[in-house]
């Protein structure tokens, strides 16, 4: 039996000689970051359920995060995004029209302006979740710079008790390819 064991050991040694697993590797050549160093916490896309999305708000979006997922806008919210490159970009936004506001205001229109250029005007006569996505002409945008997006509601809801102005519910917005 011992003799056989010796053969088995020799055979295993022979077979393991086929395997060439290196012990370790050195770090490879480092790839360049995709979008370079951004000047602030502002990137190309924001999730408004997160606190860090504060940096993307210029005006008219609530500081308060509702249900950990969204925020109220006012009549003319303005957002900012840093874009390294401006080619082949699409502006996308997830938002909702609230039943409570629509009931009072009736159908609403939201104008989407990018750096002062009208990208689209959206019309809604029903409440619910909405998804907007539209390619942005490169000449609307500025590379390696902050770009501003304004979302103007034609008929915001105004509280009869404290005159608070509510536009729509903003969940996510930004630029994607």
């Amino acid at each position, binding site marked *: 039996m011992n003799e056989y064991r010796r053969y088995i050991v020799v055979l295993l040694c022979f077979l393991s000689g086929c395997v*060439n697993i290196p*012990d*370790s590797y050195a770090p*490879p050549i480092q790839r360049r970051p995709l979008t370079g160093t951004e000047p602030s916490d502002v990137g190309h896309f924001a999730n408004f359920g997160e606190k860090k999305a504060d940096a993307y708000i210029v005006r008219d979006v609530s500081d308060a995060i509702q249900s950990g997922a969204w925020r109220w806008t006012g009549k003319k919210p303005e957002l900012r995004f840093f874009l390294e*490159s401006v080619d082949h970009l699409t502006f996308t936004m997830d938002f909702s029209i609230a039943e409570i506001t629509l009931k009072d205001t009736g159908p609403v229109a939201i104008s989407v302006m990018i750096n002062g250029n009208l990208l689209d005007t959206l019309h809604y006569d029903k409440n619910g979740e909405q998804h907007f996505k539209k390619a942005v002409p490169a000449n609307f945008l500025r590379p390696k710079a902050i770009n501003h997006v304004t979302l103007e509601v034609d008929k915001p809801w105004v509280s009869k008790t404290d005159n608070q102005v509510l536009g729509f519910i903003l969940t996510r917005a930004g630029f994607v390819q």
Partner: protein
Amino acid sequence: MPQALSIVFGAGFTVVVSLALGRLLLRSFKARLYRQEENVLAFVSGAACLSLLTFFLCTVGAARKGVFLAVGVTLLAIAVWRGAHRATGESFAPLPPLWRWLFRSIFAIFFVLYFINAMAPEMSADGVAYHLGVVSRYLRAHGFERITTNMYASLSEGIELLFLFAFAFGRHSAAALTHFAFLVTLPLAMLSYARRFGFPAAGVCAALLVFVSPVAGMDGTVAYNDIATACIVFTVFYLAQIWASDESNSGLLVPLGLVAGFGYAAKYTAFLAVPYALGIVAWKSIRGGQPVVKRILVVTAWAAIMIAPWMIKNAVWLGNPVSPFLSEFFPNPYIHLSVLKDYTEYLRHYDLTSNREIPLEVTVRGALLCGLLGPIFLLAPIGLLALRWPAGRTLLLAAMVFLIPFPANIGTRFLLPALPFVALSMGLVVAQSSAAALALVLAHAVLSWPSVIGMYSDPRAWRLENKIPIRQALRIESEESYVNFKMASYGMARLIEHYVPPGGRVFTWGGAAESYTPREIVIAYQSAFGSSIGDLLWTPLVREVPATWLLRFHYPAQRLRQIRVVQTATAADQWSVSEFRIYNGTAELARAANWKLRARPNPWDVQLAFDNSPVTRWRSWQAITPDMSLSVEFGTPEISDSVLLECSHDQYKIQLKLEGMDESGKWIALAGAPEATDIPEPLGLRRAVVEEVKARDIHYMLVLDTDFGAADFQNRSNVWGITMLGDHRGAKLYHLD
């Protein structure tokens, strides 16, 4: 030379040289054989020798048409000089007239049908892709090349080397005709066996049952290797039975070992020929009170001569002697275990919903399992009645042995090695009644005629077409026009050759007729390299794949020699890490050249987690188990207080913990579960992916309209940074700009 003649010459020359070599071999070992059986046994034994010789020529870089011609002519001259061209041995007793007439008439009709089909332009999927793809590559390189991007190139290729010998003269159809030679040899060997052992009528029935079987006719007339494998396996059986019936015929042990080894060289699944041959030799020797060891050693040594070259080639070039299989025991960077597992899992089930479908699929339908034996084989269980005769028990034992690999690949073709034994056992039973045997064979022949098959089989069945391609076989209609019309992948190959410069490599998920273009085609599932490129290209297309999931481990700042992340869960998910970053406060530790990076498993890809690219990732490429880890060993101990893993979301079950090696060399727990956050998908992923693919020396991509993401590549080609060069029947060729 007209193309048709060069085809016939290529195949004929290969067959004649094989026959000559086989006769020289059998006669040099003084094997006593009947005249008729000597030819079939000589052809298969000689084919083994020629395959081995071609292996040698490929190894020394001498795989050239001129060398093949010189070697073949020299061997023929030696054969003539040694008198091997003269038939020797006694003849079998003549077949009874009825059976002689039956065999000759049906054999002749199907011989002509098969010959024409084999000579027609080669269009079989696997034939034009890899069986002849590697053959044409070896011929261009005048020998073997180290191919790490195609797992099929690491299978044993004993038959493909015979194809290479023929291909050098007559290209694709010469290879198919060489395979056809085995298709013709198999029934002749079966008949000879039956005549030698005294049941010629059963032999006629069985030989015809196999020969006219639709899957045999289809497989044996294209550049596959299943019929050749079946012929080799039967030859092993036949040689073993001759020796077992007359142990003084000891010269047969050499061809027995050689041909058994040739089984492995032809197809891994035929490795069972070796233990079968050894089992017969050992059993007979022990029962006869004869010495066993010497006989076993003779058979083993000659089998090893055929097997060892393939194992050594794979061990040296791919780190796995039986590549791509058993890669879990022979870890190597050339095949991903998960891809291999998916592939082998598919072969166990194909697209069947239940194994109960197998009998009808392999006999009547012929679509899902690629081929049909013919409805007559639904009667195969009658072969069990042959158990009452010794020959029947011998045959059924062989059938059982060679059916063992079938569950691993339930394609109909994988029944072929056992089919002769099943057919002979059926023949033994039905030949008890001449009328029944006659009816069975005639019915099978009618049901196996191409235009009749279509009346009962699935319309998508893998079978010969109704129309007999005489004009195409004789090249009255050009090969180019016929193949281009019939086979989309041929046009893809032409598209590639037109646009891709010599030396250029093309990535694709599906495949193209590789043997019809000299350009290298990298197919996603065929290698680790290919599947990694496929993974890269899908990164921007699958929402869960981009590295938007950040996992951060916090721990008290301390000086450490090593840091490792350990995965502790067991599940079907795969673990992946796009970037592994180490911080001291807010500053990331710069990755120093003297860092040592390790991963377990898949150590070869560990750098992908440390390359600062958001599109590459280290992946386990196998289901997660608790022994997986990623580690960094610093050149000198470093102070750090957090580790950030940038990960994709497609790994729901992973559980991670962080460990560090302190300055004393002791591993300590640093942190348990990490803090998880999400970031938006970065911009520029598509362009970054293309840059990574180009960095891997792939500058072209063939995308079928049915491929995942095809619309994105087409509609957003400017975002990817790719340009469509051409389109052929739903396949688009892109240049990576």
